[in-house]
């Protein structure tokens, strides 16, 4: 159970505080409600590139990292399709340094050609290191483009291509900053050895003077319903053939998300899961296999992906997966198996919240979903899912007309 309080400043900034007297540290977590889904289709990868620029210095703190480090802190950030999250971990007595830095870069980010030029290059290297220069590294680009035709989830956070990163201009950066980086589009969480009242008064001290703002208009097009199976085959320099299957599911803020998450746990969470025991061990078709939901805010994806053993074709692998999916559709999952995956979820959720850093993010994240208090009810939500719902969801979702299937084949 996480105790916290949530208030809103007049300028629209949401502030959450969770006092934890047991730690000498404090975490300042700021989530901005902007991600790759807010990008223009010809300027993809921009939200993430912008995240890099947030470390390029602000009016009164030209070197963000250095100022934080000299106060004993460290920090990082990440961007996904829906959000950009920044966090600072710092000895509690120096929490004001983190608030000063975060408020200065929200108020006066130093946007300049030099910082843009360097970060374009850094992000291009990141693109190569994590995607272009990795075996199977392009799979997500292909799969997303196959599953989405209209919605911006059709490209991954890193961007559609290197060219989009290289073409980003200073004008783009300024416009993006103005549109998305302001109090009304941010959720600040303060966790650690700071009493709630003090946390709120510090938040007011450092953020209250920023001009009021409302969240930007979202004009993200809805993805039309898919009506037939989509397929693509790619040949690349990979040692083993791989198979990816994506199914459209409802967004993170729906009950059905929890049902689908448990479905993927039944399929692949743990060594006793169905896909591992049957397709990796018993039938020995796959070298590795996993299933998960992406947790996207707008209708997202349930993904099953695996690498096939040498000598096994993607067609054989696909058939075996369809067979497993049909079992989910036609046979009620026994209570014992359902309890098993729920126990695992309980352990994972409880374990994660031990970390102060994770608590800071979780509070901001659930607040973005609508209510920070949801952090304390996740386990119940999973507990409340019934076997009949899993079967129903499998019948509606895990069907060919809702599937995008990618074969990633070894170049002969």
């Amino acid at each position, binding site marked *: 159970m996480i105790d916290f309080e949530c208030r809103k400043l007049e300028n629209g900034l949401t502030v959450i505080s969770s006092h934890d007297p*047991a730690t*000498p*540290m404090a975490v300042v977590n700021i989530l901005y409600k902007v991600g790759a889904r807010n990008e223009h289709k010809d300027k993809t990868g921009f939200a993430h590139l912008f995240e890099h620029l947030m470390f390029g210095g602000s009016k*009164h*703190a030209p*070197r963000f990292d*250095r100022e934080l*480090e*000299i*106060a*004993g*802190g*460290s920090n990082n950030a990440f961007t996904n399709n829906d959000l950009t999250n920044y966090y600072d*971990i*710092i*000895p509690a*007595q*120096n929490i*004001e*340094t983190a608030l*000063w830095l975060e408020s200065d870069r929200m108020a006066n980010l130093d946007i300049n050609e030099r910082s843009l030029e*360097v970060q*374009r*290059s*850094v992000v*291009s*290297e*990141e693109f*190569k*290191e994590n995607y272009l*220069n990795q075996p199977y590294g392009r799979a997500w680009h292909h799969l997303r483009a196959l599953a989405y035709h209209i919605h911006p989830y059709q490209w991954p956070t890193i961007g559609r291509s290197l060219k989009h990163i290289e073409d980003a201009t200073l004008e783009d950066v300024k416009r993006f900053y103005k549109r998305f980086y302001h109090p009304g589009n941010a959720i600040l969480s303060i966790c650690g050895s700071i009493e709630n009242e003090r946390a709120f008064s510090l938040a007011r*001290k450092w953020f*209250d*003077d920023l001009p009021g703002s409302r969240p930007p208009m979202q004009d993200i097009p809805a993805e039309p319903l898919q009506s037939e199976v989509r397929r693509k085959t790619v040949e690349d*320099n*990979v*040692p*083993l053939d791989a198979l990816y299957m994506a199914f459209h599911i409802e967004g993170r803020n729906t009950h059905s998300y929890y049902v689908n998450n448990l479905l993927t746990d039944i399929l692949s969470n*743990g*060594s*006793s*899961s169905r896909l591992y*025991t049957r397709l*990796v*061990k018993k039938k*020995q078709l796959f*070298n*590795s296999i996993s299933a998960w939901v992406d947790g996207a805010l707008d209708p997202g994806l349930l993904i099953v992906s695996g690498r096939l053993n*040498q000598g096994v074709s993607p067609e054989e692998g696909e058939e075996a997966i369809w067979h497993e999916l049909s079992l989910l559709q036609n046979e009620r999952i026994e209570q*014992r198996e359902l309890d*098993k995956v*729920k*126990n695992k*979820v*309980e*352990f994972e959720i*409880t374990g994660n*919240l*031990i970390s*102060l850093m994770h608590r800071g993010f979780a509070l901001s994240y659930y607040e973005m979903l609508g209510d920070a208090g949801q952090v304390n009810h996740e386990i119940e939500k999973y507990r409340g899912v019934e076997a009949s719902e899993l079967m129903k969801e499998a019948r509606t979702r895990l069907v060919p007309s809702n599937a995008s299937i990618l074969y990633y084949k070894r170049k002969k």
Partner: protein
Amino acid sequence: MIDRSVKPDIKKVSSIRLLTPEEAGLSHGSLLYYLPDTLYDIFQIEWVFPAGKWFESKKGTAGFTARMMREGSTKHNALQLATMIDELGAEIDIRISSDYLTVKAMGITRHYESILKIMAEILLEPCFPEEELALKKKIALQQLLVDREKVEYLASKKLMETLYGKDHPYGHKPDEEDIKEIQREDLLSYHREKIIPSPAWIFLSGKVPKNYTKTLDSLLSGINPERKSPQIDLRETGARRKGGKFFVRKEEAQQNAIRMGRHLYAPSHPDSDRMKILTTILGGYFGSRLMSKIREEKGYTYGIYSSIQSHVHASFLYLATEVGRPYLEAALADIYKEIERLRSEPVGEEELTLVRNYLLGTALNAIDGPHKALSLYKNLILRGKGPSDFKNYIHTVQNINAGELLSMAEKYLDPSLLLEVVAGEK
């Protein structure tokens, strides 16, 4: 209105207190360290045996023993064991490092006894079924094919092989032949000789039932029959090679992986804390010299890091980055320039304060809460150190001066003694 041109004052981190775990000798000789938690209903236990790669006589034995221990016992087959673990919502993980084999379990407090019971079964009675081993070998062989597509894998493999030698436990990663050669008999005898008779260290943190030692005692009675307490042999191992440049070709690579390193000393060496600080300045944090120069100024890479890696018998300097093809030569030149600068110019007071404060803040964070604190404690114990060494480290961080760092750099960062490996297409 707040004036942001005035920075908040910075208060020094003055006290860093490492929680002291309760220590108990168990009846069968193992040593138990326990740090309690009252907040979360979670516990974590690690059973550490001196049975890492260092102790194997046939390559790959330790790794496959670890991978196979969950794959069937005399009482339950692999699927039954996995189901038992998953039903408790628990995780049991067996890993090896160069020196140790560690069985780690995490779970919810109310399942403490049941989880430990499964853990004991996995530890004491694995049967290493033939068909499970065949599958693990097949998976490992194919994973090797995937790894070989990665420049970072190729470069670090070459570096370690060259540094300590292909036949040294710190220098080798199993290749096809090693994997194919592994037989069930090897695992059975490794388990019989290196695990069952071994005194172990046990690290337990979190919330546990009152009679937690009793559970451990009764379950473990089969292990360590001679009731010895665990000891560490701290002899230093030597490097096979110092200095030299190597290239591993990887067709069509878009980036080159750079790995550099040199053998330093045994981890208990008196220079080790000062060298840790020096490598932090070089490439150990975001504000480091290499990060500032090669990423934030030049944009050659997504990241560049240097660190001291410590095994039981050796510590070595390690530097790693991936850079775009056109930048290779320039990045290498900058790396050497930064190393040279540490050897010729004293670190300025401002930078010294920065790294000092950063390291103290990081240390405070590293021991925050029982799980993290015990993990740090474990790393000390397993390198033959103790809590006083952590105190000394903090003291060194607080008091180090530029002269000491300069002499460390002169002593250990001679570029002609650094091994350099590049993997990629140049």
